[in-house]
């Protein structure tokens, strides 16, 4: 039997989809995975988007963004998580996972928001100011709407990274889809392990599609044509401040 058949069998086995005798099935693990992901992305967004918008609007502190982004880029997530759990104790494992995932998402969102706001046509901003918009109005009515493609692009890529990385929650005995991978590995049930990986990838694809749809809905049609392709390239990170 090929690997694909094994994975197929595992995924279509109804036993794996219900929680029995304390052994969680796919829906519960999926819920946990989304919980960790949603929480981390939300907290990261609350921190990073206003900060990135402020830095982008004022132009002050651009070097900080570059520094933060570059230094966090090579962060070893599993190592960080284990360190956090050791420091905070296993009872705070969820908090530790959230912190680790937030630290993963913040640089991406910060860079996206910063470069989004920074890249808004300077002439439009100058015109906005010259027509009598206050600094708040410039930020809210001109800069953020125009930065939206880049910001949402950053949200997408941060979310995908967090979904992929949230699997490590299982390392510190939490749930999530990573459970199947870790347990499968430990029990040498490679069908379970592979199925876990497939589920994580599937979740990532579905969420990506949903967020792409959302982006299409909320971004002004006036920005659509030009930005759709540049989004990904530009979210990458500014190279200078």
């Amino acid at each position, binding site marked *: 039997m090929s690997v694909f058949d094994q994975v197929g069998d595992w995924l279509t086995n109804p036993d794996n989809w219900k929680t029995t005798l304390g052994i969680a099935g796919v829906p519960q693990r999926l819920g946990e995975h989304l919980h960790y992901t949603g929480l981390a992305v939300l907290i990261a967004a609350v921190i990073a988007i206003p900060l990135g918008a402020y830095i982008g609007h004022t132009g002050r502190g651009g070097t900080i963004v570059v520094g933060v982004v570059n230094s966090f880029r090579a962060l070893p997530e599993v190592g960080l998580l284990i360190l956090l759990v050791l420091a905070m104790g296993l009872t705070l494992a969820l908090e530790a996972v959230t912190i680790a995932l937030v630290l993963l998402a913040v640089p991406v969102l910060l860079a996206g928001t910063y470069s989004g706001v920074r890249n808004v*046509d300077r002439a*439009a901003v*100058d*015109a906005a100011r*010259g*027509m*009598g918009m206050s600094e708040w109005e410039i930020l809210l009515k001109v800069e953020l709407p125009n930065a939206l493609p880049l910001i949402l692009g950053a949200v997408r890529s941060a979310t995908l990274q967090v979904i992929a990385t949230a699997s490590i929650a299982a390392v510190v005995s939490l749930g999530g889809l990573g459970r199947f991978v870790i347990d499968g590995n430990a029990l040498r049930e490679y069908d379970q392990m592979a199925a876990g990986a497939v589920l994580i990838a599937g979740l990532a694809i579905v969420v990506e599609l949903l967020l792409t749809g959302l982006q299409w809905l909320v971004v*002004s049609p006036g*920005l659509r044509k030009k930005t759709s392709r540049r989004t990904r390239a530009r979210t990458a990170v500014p190279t200078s401040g």
Partner: protein
Amino acid sequence: MIEFQSVTKRYPDGTVAVDALDLTIDAGKITVLVGPSGCGKTTSLRMINRMVEASSGTILVNGADVRAQRPATLRRGIGYVIQNAGLFPHRTVVDNIATVPILLGTKKAAARRRAEELLDTVGLPRELGGRYPAQLSGGQQQRVGVARALAADPPVLLMDEPFSAVDPVVRDDLQEELLRLQSELGKTIVFVTHDIDEAIKLGDKVAVLRVGGTLAQYDTPATLLAKPVDDFVASFVGRDRGYRALGFLSAHGAQIAPLSTVPLGSPVDAARAALENGWAVVVDEGKAPLGWVSSTSLSTVEGELRSADLVSGGSLYAADAKSGSLRTALDAALSSPSGIGIAVDSDGAVAGGVTAESVLKALDEARRSGGVPS
């Protein structure tokens, strides 16, 4: 009226952009600030709406110190047009135009209706109202920029090199459009450009600034061309200024001589008979000029005169219009293959011919009678 009272802008690093500038800008007129880069023309303009704060001195707009108001409030009362228009990419044309009225508290629907009217004013079809800036050409964007600046009907309009990023043909259209608009609206317009030709074309008065932010000369375009105060202004005003100054002299005095005409389709023999000094103008049924025939050009033609047989003509001189200047008259003469410029009346029909000699004679008379600034 806008008044600069010894206004200076000094940057923290010590550079002086504008140095003790005194300037009175007339209400209801177009005043052009022109000069080489680094002369402080844009800085001067931007100090009026406090996009740049003056280091010392006072700027009065209609008698009120600009510093008496919050910058945002001040700016909502002053139209602002910049290079590349600076339209908001995420908003439709109509919503771009409605920006300031909405900031001032006008209801959205009313502001949009007004925005649609403004599309007519700046010569754009209303269908463009629902488009986004990226879907417009550069010239259309700039027209929207002007409409947006006019939306709240401000008495003062600041225009910072608005037409310098569009191609020459479109720029010419936009300049004509601005002059037409101004003849209807009578705004106080301050216009910055580095292009002296644009300054001379648009300005009721032109302020030439020199590097370091001092005023070199402030005069009407005609005076600027005829009597530059020093070598800097003379060289900045440029070559051919004698010729260009003719543009400000009415060609009324230039004598228009009768011109021999032949209708298209006449027999070649009739055309030969009509030649005067070897040339005749071929006209259509409305007597509008189509081109010239000469004894040389007719020598190979047989039968009836067809349009393929014509020698193409030069520029036309509208003798009837008030705008007919010695420059257009002279150009008509110089560009004509026969050496005689064709003068047309308001219907476009041939009214006669002008020669370079008659233009120079008219210039001579204007000089003697004091019609030329000196």
